[in-house]
């Protein structure tokens, strides 16, 4: 059974102990920051800083390598395509027919690629260090209705299960001589039909049983729900949150008033 749907890695670190709300605030802070500053130096510095955070948060290097393996194709793609589709600018480095490569285009491409990477890693700070239950808890604490949070948590919990069912069903149909994923597009789509029907029927049964299991566990028993491990802001959180807010305001003032980092 695969657990690949969960990025969380359990480590004893300050980053893991941080309240999920603080980390959500960090993601918001990073997004606003990265979207308003376009200079490649800002994104690069930010990216470096995030790696520092991940490293001090004891996220193993293998996970970072895993993340970069997924990020570099899109990074290369942006670096290649941006200059081609952005022919403006004075300094023309290279021109064939209508394709103009300019210094400005290259810079913008670099900036865009670094921003996308930095943004992705800002999210990974949250996902690598926060288990799903705490993440959902954080969202509920921020005002998401509990039922929605529970639905979200259950959806994440059952992804591996449904994947397992999918694998077994496709094996069962192959064992009866069914060939999956060959031929033209329409035929390929059709070849998944016998599998999808069986998976959907099983998923419906699962959902039925799940709703019974929930009510057998006192769900909607009328009592006000309490929590075994409620989230409370620790000292670190109380330091981090105003820090984010203050630096965000500061950065934005510099950006808007003084036009820095454009």
């Amino acid at each position, binding site marked *: 059974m695969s657990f690949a749907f969960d990025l969380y890695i359990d480590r004893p670190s300050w980053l893991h102990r941080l309240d999920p709300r603080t980390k959500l605030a960090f993601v918001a802070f990073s997004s606003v920051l990265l979207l308003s500053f376009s200079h490649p130096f800002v994104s690069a510095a930010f990216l470096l800083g995030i790696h520092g955070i991940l490293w001090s948060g004891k996220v193993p290097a293998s996970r970072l390598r895993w993340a970069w393996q997924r990020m570099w194709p899109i990074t290369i793609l942006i670096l290649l395509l941006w200059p081609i589709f952005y022919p403006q600018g004075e300094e023309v480095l290279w021109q064939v027919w209508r394709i103009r490569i300019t210094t400005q285009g290259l810079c913008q491409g670099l900036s865009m690629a670094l921003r996308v990477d930095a943004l992705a890693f800002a999210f990974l700070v949250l996902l690598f260090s926060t288990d799903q239950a705490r993440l959902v808890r954080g969202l509920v604490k921020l005002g998401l209705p509990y039922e929605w949070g529970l639905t979200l948590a259950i959806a994440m919990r059952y992804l591996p299960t449904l994947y397992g069912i999918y694998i077994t069903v496709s094996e069962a149909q192959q064992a009866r001589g069914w060939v999956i994923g060959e031929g033209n597009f329409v035929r390929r789509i059709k070849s998944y039909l016998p599998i999808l029907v*069986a998976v959907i029927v099983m998923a419906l049964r699962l959902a039925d049983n799940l709703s019974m299991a929930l*009510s057998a566990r006192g769900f909607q028993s009328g009592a006000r729900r*309490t929590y075994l491990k409620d989230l409370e802001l620790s000292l670190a959180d109380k330091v981090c949150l105003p820090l984010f807010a203050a630096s965000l305001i500061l950065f934005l003032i510099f950006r808007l008033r003084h036009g820095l980092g454009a």
Partner: protein
Amino acid sequence: MDDVVIVENVHYAYPPLTPGGEPIPVLKGVNLRVRRGEFLALMGPTGVGKTTLCLTLNGILPHLMGGTFQGKVVVAGMDTREHGPGEMSRQVGLVFQDPESQLFNMTVEGEVAFGLESLGLSPSEMEERIAWALEVVRLSGLRQRHPLQLSGGQKKRLAIATVLAMRPQVLVLDEPVTGLDPVGRHEVLSVVEELKREREATVIMVEQDAEAVLTWADRVVIMEEGRLVLEGSPRQVLSQVESLHDWGLAVPQLGELAHLFNRRQGTSFHFFTEDEAYSALADEPISNIQYPVPDTQHPTSSEHSTAVQVEDLCYRYDDGPWAVADINLSVEAGEFLAIIGQNGSGKTTLVKHLNGLLRPTRGRVLVLGQDTAGQSVGQLARKVGYLFQNPDHQIFAPTIWEEVAFGLRNLGFSEGEVATHATEALALFGLGDHADTPPAVLGYGLRRKVTLAAVWAMRPQVLVLDEPTAGLDWRGTCTLMEEVTSLNSQGHTIILVTHDMKLVAEFARQVLVLDEGRALAYGPTRQLFQQEAILRQAFLAPPPITVLARRMRPYGLRGDSLTVEEFYQDYTALQQLDKEQRGRSPEQSEGTGAEEQGNRVPATLCPCDLAP
């Protein structure tokens, strides 16, 4: 007045499956009372309404599913007509059959906490109850584990802990050991025993396993067609062998032996356990006789061609440890091989190599003399039929006929051939009248049968059956095994993966024991079941009848019986020999001897005398 559960004349019908259809009546007037502290076993064949009755106890029926409900269910003074399942959950702890759908949290601890959070308890009280419940089910060390990472037995125990922590008045367990391997069964049943012995819990347990019922229940009720038809102490109820068999239920294997003696020899034995049987049977006068060892081997097919050959097979998933290692196997055409071992011992991994779903990391696999390398799963499907454990993994077609025709069309048969093969398969499995029925609406036993028919229709030489009897009741098991035996006698090679040692003893001629991916033993069933040390190493045990037979060897018994019938034949042959040697004994006259002889033909026996 101390009845904690009161069920009065309950009728229930599920809402119709299709709009405008008929409601489906399941409970037809159930009356039941359970005293505080009582351990009640509810037995009955599949599809008679046992689970439905459980669901009425905490108000899931009718509150959650609708349908028509008449009568009254009161648990701990609360009437389910007035209180929904959310409130009833404080009184009734319901543990469902399927562990997968009731473990929906990310950690073991969170799983137990869920119900307590619903009740609005304080964190300190929750902490206390979680620690207690996990200790009862012996999972204290695994609090942060993901429920998906637990073994089958651990999952069931966790499911019990989740409702136990809510301190309900009544615990309802729906088939708590179904589908578990022997280790898992033992783990769960020992928790059940502790609940009974030390916590004096009120428990209602739905259970097929007669041996478990005999050991733990204070009282047994039998359910048949939506009604309770028999109740009493386990010993009273389980000695009604004929009625139970008529209802399609198993009895403990040694109880069946007692019944066989009583019926054929007019004795009045009443034993269930090994010790009881031993003292009853060893009392009979038997002198120590050197018994001629007859040929006990079943005749194997004459041509001696090899159906499946496995050479030095090793396999691992990704970079994991070896899932199977150094397996060598040579299965003759027409053989009946059983593969046994705990969950995770590599049984399914091994058999998936036979039809190419997995490819060897090292070594090779030959089917009908040809290496599976270079043959697609589709090509191998002509030679190897593979019956998956859960019929719902393969059922998808709108009608049974389509379901059976599916594989044939895949293999490229002409429409004419598809029609003849499919019709023949449906006829063979007695499904001819249901050809246009959607398979999804059938009961579990019939769905199982449809999948077997669908695999058989493709006429594979080798049939791999992965836990085919899991979830079937005794009658369903008998029918299925009868069909499998008849396929075997037509020359099909059968490879059976199972946890049920009685099935192995009765049907398999060869056995492969797997332990942690390695072959622990491989040989004829009769010899292998004598080597208890090897079986124990794989956490397995021979069926009770084999254990009893060996224990009685000093009395002159051959001691290697695999079935009740064999034991009986052995024993009576010994009685006969004993009589002839003494050459007298007026009370054991010619009359009874002749009668015995006449009864030797097991014509009146059930198709198979197993008792799962």
